[in-house]
């Protein structure tokens, strides 16, 4: 576990700002938006920029060269927005959401954080070339015009960036078509869009919003018509697991334009933990729906991936679909994993996996082949 | 030789009867189909085994009526489905 929000001591209480951390001796350390950093001892940094001086203490990951951080002097806090040596940098665009998914790992909060958005854009201007940037929430498209316009401007300045944006796709409309097209022409954006069931009743129930299904499907067509790159995401829960084959048939029939379909194991935190009795599903003893869904995709030529499923919990022939999908800062391996030969190619477990959220068939794997 | 068959056509389908008769006459040249108001009469001219018994004749007549109605009623949606935009 790597904490991303850290305590810091600021010399002056200015308004929030973002800086990129570079060592004092490096060239560019005195550039715009850059803090020149002295590492007093490992993990303890004093950072000086035109905005002032602050000191903070790294935890979990002591590599900081090229990090971009958000400084909130009033709160005495530094947020590590972009860690230069991580592939899992995600901006929490807003904590507000119009859906209330039964297994949400990041339950929404009605907090107005619109003040952060211009700072995020500044931060994105500072990140290392060719970075992959996640944008998540809450529901980012509650600030849809801010989001699309930001992407459009970044498309001019930083077309090297790749964005991976999680959205429930409820809020797009025909009028967004031109801007979406423009953005997709400039910038690679992967839209991660959740769909939980082929049945609208079941989908609406899972996302806690009546009437969510139809606009979602419609907007997937809209996105596709603007050359969007779409990663469809289905979190597997006790509510929808058995209907996965019929969802697979639906996806391959109607939504074959997607780039990938990600079938995902639940992240056992937030609402998932609270709703354990409805959400928990032990695929390790009942992998059939997953296998069937994959078979259907294989036949229909839809690319499919398994996210957050440790290799040992998936039958052998289907392990090739598993991806190392869990963000580094919240991955863990179990004691039993020590003797597993596949550990380095396995996604591992969520930090919050425990005895109350336990799959039966977890075991070390031998050498392949 | 089969006897003449008379089939009553309900109001819902009477608009499609003429098209159905044309189609039936083309598909089954060994039968004569005649429309008298709400009644469709089928005369076998020569049994060729293609329209077995009376029930089979009735079924094929109704199927043609359904098909004509589906065709007419879905034509505008169909055109819009094929329209390229």
């Amino acid at each position, binding site marked *: 576990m790597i904490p991303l929000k850290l305590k810091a001591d600021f010399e002056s209480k200015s308004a929030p700002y973002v800086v990129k951390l570079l060592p004092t001796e490096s060239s560019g350390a005195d550039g715009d938006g850059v803090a020149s950093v002295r590492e007093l001892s490992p993990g303890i940094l004093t950072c000086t920029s035109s905005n002032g001086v602050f000191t903070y203490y790294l935890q979990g990951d002591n590599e900081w060269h090229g990090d971009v951080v958000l400084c909130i002097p009033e709160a005495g806090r530094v947020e590590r927005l972009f860690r230069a040596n991580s592939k899992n940098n995600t901006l929490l665009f807003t904590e507000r959401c119009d859906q209330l998914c039964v297994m949400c790992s990041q339950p929404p909060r009605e907090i107005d954080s619109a003040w952060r958005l211009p700072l995020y854009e500044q931060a994105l201007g500072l990140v290392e070339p060719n970075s992959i940037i996640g944008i998540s929430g809450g529901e980012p498209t509650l600030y849809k015009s801010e989001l699309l316009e930001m992407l459009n401007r970044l498309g001019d300045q930083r077309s090297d960036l790749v964005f991976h944006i999680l959205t429930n796709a409820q809020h797009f409309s025909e009028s967004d078509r031109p801007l979406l097209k423009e953005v997709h022409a400039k910038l690679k954006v992967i839209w991660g869009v959740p769909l939980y069931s082929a049945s609208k009743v079941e989908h609406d129930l899972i996302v806690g919003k009546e009437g969510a299904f139809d606009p979602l499907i419609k907007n997937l067509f809209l996105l596709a018509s603007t050359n969007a790159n779409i990663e469809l995401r289905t979190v597997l829960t006790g509510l929808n697991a058995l209907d996965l084959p019929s969802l697979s*048939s639906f996806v*391959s029939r109607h939504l074959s334009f997607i780039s990938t379909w990600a079938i995902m194991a639940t992240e056992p935190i937030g609402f998932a933990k609270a709703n354990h009795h409805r959400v928990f599903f032990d695929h390790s003893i009942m992998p059939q729906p997953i296998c069937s869904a994959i*078979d*259907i995709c294989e*036949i229909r030529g839809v690319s499919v991936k398994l996210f957050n499923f440790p290799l040992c919990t998936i039958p052998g022939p289907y392990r090739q679909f598993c991806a190392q999908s869990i963000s580094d800062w919240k991955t863990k391996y179990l004691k039993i994993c020590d003797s597993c030969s596949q550990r380095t190619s396995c996604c591992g477990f969520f930090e919050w996996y425990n005895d109350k959220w336990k799959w039966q068939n977890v075991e070390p794997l031998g050498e392949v082949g | 030789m089969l006897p003449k068959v008379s089939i009553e056509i309900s109001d819902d389908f009477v608009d499609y009867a003429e098209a159905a008769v044309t189609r039936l006459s083309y598909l089954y040249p060994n039968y004569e189909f005649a429309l008298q108001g709400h009644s469709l009469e089928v005369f076998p001219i020569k049994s060729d085994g293609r329209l077995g018994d009376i029930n089979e004749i009735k079924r094929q007549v109704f199927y043609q009526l*359904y098909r004509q109605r589906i065709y007419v009623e879905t034509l505008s*949606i169909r055109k819009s489905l*094929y329209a390229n935009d």
Partner: protein
Amino acid sequence: MISASNYTPLRFRDIGDELLITNEVGDFGLFPLDTVERFFAGTLPEKSVDELKTLGVLIDNADSWQLMSLARRLKKQNAVAKKVHYLILIPTLRCNLTCSYCQVSRAPLAASGFDWNDKRLDEFSAYLDTIEPDHLKVEFQGGEPTLRPDLISKIMEICLTKAKSADFVICTNILDLSPEVLKLFDREDTVISTSLDGPLQAMSSNRTKDDNLSIRTQKNLEYLLKSYGPGKVSALPTITEDNFSNFRELIDTYIELGFQSIFLRPVNYQGFARKKHAKMHEEVARWNNYYTSAIEYIKERNRSGYFEEFYLASLARKIFGHEESGFVDLRSPVSFLSDYAVIDFNGKIYPSDEARMLSRIKHVDLAVGDLTDGVDSAKILSLNSAGVNQVHEDCLHCVYMPFCGIDIVDDISRYGRIDLPKADTWFCNRHMFMFDFLFQKVQSKQRDWLDLFLRWARRSTEPSNAYALFS
């Protein structure tokens, strides 16, 4: 409940004791026999309503995403290729065999004036300039193209210069494997296609008329398979009624040689047109009987490895796997010369190889241009206009319309006309039979067949648990 604005086209047909219903793009479902009657009477059971909604037949409103999905898929299914990417070339009409079913599409070995000359090569090169090909697949047919390895080499060179990339198929009787021919076979961009009608005796009676020649081709085939592997060599049988009883030997021959696929297609005696349709029905029934026995046997042989009947497997891939088959003669709308062209020894351009044969016997002239003067787009247009099953009065109500096509050339070759009721044509009867066969297995849930269809659809010996594709 039913009004003209809340449903999309549906088609239906009795299968067993259920009603098969398809929508405009070929999604299907099995319903109670009285479903259409109750559909119009407004007395459908809730289950049927839900299933018709799933098919996009019943829609909630004119703004439904189901309409967007249908439109998008229709566009994809009916997309017409923008460029020619498949060429069949006949560099020579001469042949060193006289097969019984090929009296018309060959010239004697010693005849002159039946090979491409330098002028033809130049014209071909100029023709490629007009189509600006991206990737080109080129099939050398004949006659026997390996009589002129020098010509094949030159044509390959032209193709590789004019197209961004190209690969080649040499269709050959493999009677003579000269060093020049083997050099062509060695190329990584080239595969070999040959005729194989079964064991020795079938080869002799159909093709070589001489057991010694049959043995030679057999040895050559074994040699090619040994040197290049089965991925490089494919074989195609020509099946005449005389061979109907020998299907086991034919299939065994293919399996023993290591082939994973056989295309069981009936020979079309070009020009020996059938006069009476009563006879047509008998003839197609004989073929369908033969075909049924053969694929039953193929199913048995699949217990110990992968082996497909190519046409049925292709239909399964199309219907259940949503794969476009690409068969030139199973298309609708027909779009001759949009992606595919045949160029004869004399430079004439045809929309298909059957069309070339048909013209050869002067049944009808289906040439749509030549290398010298280019293509005749008015003639192509008039041929295409008869090839749209979505509007053809015989096809537009057919439950199999979304999967089927129209083969004008086959109709002309058999009946000399294209306006015979489709139900009286060989093409329609053969395809109705095949579609019925597939859907009867679905309706009766015959696991052994369904498993086989899934394996073929996935091109895999592994069993698939994808039964959702059948409902």
